[in-house]
């Protein structure tokens, strides 16, 4: 045994280093937890404005480097947003420092370093054109973390004169004014589908249907 470890110590070292590299760089075994999010969406004619606050914590005694992608819900009627920003933030959404992102093809990627036992809020803002009066917010990517969100708040503001036509998540609350606000909150949330919603002019919109 001693002979084996002596002769092959370089191989053992190499395997160990590969393990360390995978652990630290590839996020295959995510020790970091994504446990809270707050999403606020403003819908206006032909435009969706999204602000998201995401909470990440590193309970491990090792530092971690999160490499994250920013998924945009893109289809023929909703082109890829060209205005977006990513930043570390405080719990109430104030920007602390911008995060540099890089684009690889159509994907936006960014890194968040986390020290041992560190927690961070990351704020993402984007504005998307909506050629039809509907929008989607991607939720199912939460499943890639392999554990449910501890808590999520989801808020939809509809611009002046717009009515909610449909949403696949039933709102818990509604504040009516010129600007209508619908919201729902989830705990232990393991989303099975993305959040899709549609709006219309008062005359065209039916009462919120298609809810689950």
């Amino acid at each position, binding site marked *: 045994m001693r002979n084996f470890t002596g002769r092959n110590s370089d191989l053992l070292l190499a395997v160990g280093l590969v393990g360390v590299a995978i652990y630290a760089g590839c996020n295959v075994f995510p020790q970091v937890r994504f446990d809270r999010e707050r999403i606020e969406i403003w819908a206006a004619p032909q435009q969706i404005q999204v602000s998201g606050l995401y909470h990440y914590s590193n309970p491990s005694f090792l530092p971690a480097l999160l*490499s994250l992608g920013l998924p945009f819900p893109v289809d023929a009627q909703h082109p890829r947003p060209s205005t977006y920003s990513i930043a570390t933030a405080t719990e109430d959404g104030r920007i602390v420092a911008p995060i*540099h992102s890089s684009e690889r093809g159509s994907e936006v990627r960014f890194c968040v370093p986390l020290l041992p036992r560190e927690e961070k809020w990351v704020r993402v803002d984007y504005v998307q054109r909506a050629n039809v009066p509907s929008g989607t917010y991607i939720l199912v990517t939460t499943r890639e973390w392999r554990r449910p969100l501890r808590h999520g708040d989801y808020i939809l503001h509809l611009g002046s004169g717009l009515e909610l036509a449909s949403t696949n998540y039933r709102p818990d609350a509604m504040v009516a004014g010129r*600007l209508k606000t619908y919201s729902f909150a989830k705990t232990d949330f393991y989303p099975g589908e993305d959040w899709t919603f549609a709006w219309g002019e008062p005359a065209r919109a039916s009462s919120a249907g298609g809810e689950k």
Partner: protein
Amino acid sequence: MKFRRKAELIFWMVTLSALPAWANNPPQPDGLFSLILIFPVAIFGYRLAGVAYTERQRKWRVARGLALGLAVLISAAGTGIAAIPLLLMLIYGCLRGVQIILRGQGPKRVLIGAAVCLWTLFAISDYLVSLNIRSPVAVHESSTISRLRFLAQAEDTYASNSALKKYATLEQLRDARMPLQGFAGGSNGDSGAYDSYLHGAVVSGYRYRLTVDASGGKFLITAVPADYVAEVAALRIPGASWLHALRQRHAQDNVGRRSFAVDESGVIRAADLGTTRPVTREEAGKWPPLQ
């Protein structure tokens, strides 16, 4: 396996694994340019001072060349991982400078050696500065979009709550204590911000203006950059990062590029006016919606 082989193996493993993970903050081109120039500067310095290579230097020159070439390659990755190659290049440059002073010929050797050392220090500092050049424009624009949204939301709430269903001026919004809210009611722009908007103060690089038409049925909020800054071109000449950092030292807080506007429809529009000036409703209405 010899120690040297093991060291090589570790070096390659760390380099190949860490590069993809950290290469998200590359330096500006001039930072890398300055670093690479350390080598020709040292070589020319050696020649000018008439320093002869020792037998030991000749023996190791291929290995040294490979190691330094690799160091330059790694430094292209930027943040964090560049610390080790930077140290290597600092040692190389300064050592060459000292060798020129000690082993060179003629009275100019001190000057040449000092120049090599100074260039090394300058190149490394330029590289470090080039890593940290980040335009604040994107952050200012993001904050401005949020602020416009909160102001538009405050207008809608005010009009919904008022008996006459009319939109308000900034003074009226402030006096009515209309909250500027975001994120589930959490304050994201305190109500004291109204005073800043009213007094034309610069908020995250922008000045705000709210106009309500005579009937009170329409409003327009505009945000124009306090100091217009064109897109920063890539910095390519050695020292450009230093110069840029010195020029921008006091101006970073006031810069913006695009002008923004939002009206009662809630649609945020943007345009790069190439300058900073007041905007009319007619003009803003022709801007494309932000997307």
